[in-house]
């Protein structure tokens, strides 16, 4: 009669370390790997607003507006597929692997690029010559 085959395993499990990660009491950070998918981040100052990311996004979560210099992402539509990161020509998009907390509102994240200062025609002032 073999009914106690599982008993040895159960006893071993009873007297050894739990196999679950004790988050958030003992382990402060949830388990992530360098390639884990967390959320998309953008370095808005490097963005050229070419809209390649918006065209590639399968869920239409990204909206780019070149005249207003605004890049917005709907966090709840984004499925973290990484397509926008791969296609960006300026490499200003990045996948942050950290765990994203749940949200209770359907907000979009809107990034606006600061207006760049105009380049002036005169050279910088130097010591007078002669």
């Amino acid at each position: 009669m073999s009914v106690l085959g599982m008993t040895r395993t159960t006893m071993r499990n009873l007297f050894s370390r739990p196999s679950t990660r004790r988050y958030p009491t003992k382990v402060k950070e949830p388990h992530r790997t360098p390639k884990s998918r967390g959320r998309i981040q953008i370095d808005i100052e490097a963005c050229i607003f070419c809209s390649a990311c918006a065209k590639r996004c399968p869920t239409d979560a990204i909206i780019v507006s070149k005249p207003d210099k605004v890049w917005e992402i709907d966090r709840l539509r984004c499925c973290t597929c990484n397509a926008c990161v791969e296609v960006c020509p300026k490499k200003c998009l990045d996948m942050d692997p950290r765990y994203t907390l749940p949200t209770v509102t359907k907000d979009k994240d809107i990034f606006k690029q600061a207006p760049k200062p105009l380049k002036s025609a005169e050279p910088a002032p130097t010591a007078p010559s002669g």
Partner: protein
Amino acid sequence: MGSRTVIPFGPQHPALPEPIHLDLVLEDEKVVEAIPKIGFVHRGFEKLVEKMDFNELVYVADRICGICAFIHSMAYCQAVEAVMNVEVPPRAVFLRTVWSELARLSSHLLWLGFMADVMGFESLFMQSFRLREKIVDMLEEMTGGRIILGVCRVGGVRRDVANDTLAGIAGRVKDLVRDMRRLADVFLQDDSVKHRLVDVGVLTREQAADLGCVGPVMRASGISRDTRTLGYAAYGFVDFSPVVETSGDSYARCAVRVRELFQSVGIIEQAASKIPAGEVSVKVSGYPEGEYHSRCEQPRGEVVHYVKGDGTRYLQRYRVRTPTFANIPALVKMLQGCELADVPVLVLTIDPCISCTER
């Protein structure tokens, strides 16, 4: 002759793993007839060909199922690559094979856990999931996703894995064999498990061939067919043979899946040792024109992705025939003549994945 009662079972039920509805016609605790009904999670995926172009459909293919996701996307990519005559780099093909087998391990361990749960053996259920968690963590380290990997693309794969990481993963999978062996011993030799599974839901070899079953359901009835022997992806370069049992009852179906665990470990080791160097993706230009049926072996059986393109960005037709779709007629036949208490066990032995079936 006793009176007949009709009991509706599902789609929501504590003992039912998937949203299938069965009208069980009972005669004093014996099921006389079972009428299935599906359609509760129909999402209409195949209509998305009109909105998403053939490159974006990979994301849709990934999300058809929540257990066997990677093999769907691989089958779709293989179909489009065959239509467009794209030559996928060998390294990508081997990586796809390794990921398919890891997905198969995680799916079979999930099934074993559910089987134990449905029989009432909770500690065995937890032990299976303990093992499965390690496999799924390995997938996350390599690709970033646990189930929906999102790594396949038309023309290759999107992420590369360094050779020593791959060798490390193969070593860790091999270390799990000892725990898998202990789990297998409980499933195959424990008396309480055998009492629930042996001679329950017998499907003879002729019935299995008539009903068009696929996967472990067919192999447990003695028919030796495995779609991996077609040699798609890198399966032509690894040694394996289909796992076959002959008794055709639930115990045989359980034994096939248990033995396939060890077969998958062997395939992963072989593929990880033979993987060539090179790039992992090629650029694909042009649009698909033509049609092809791409067949892969999912953990549940043979899946067919049929793709038809007419030369534009959007495909004309994308049809997925999942293995559970082909196994539901077998379920209906198996349920005739069983006891009421065996119904959840029988529904689970075909490994239903109703979200795949209805897309």
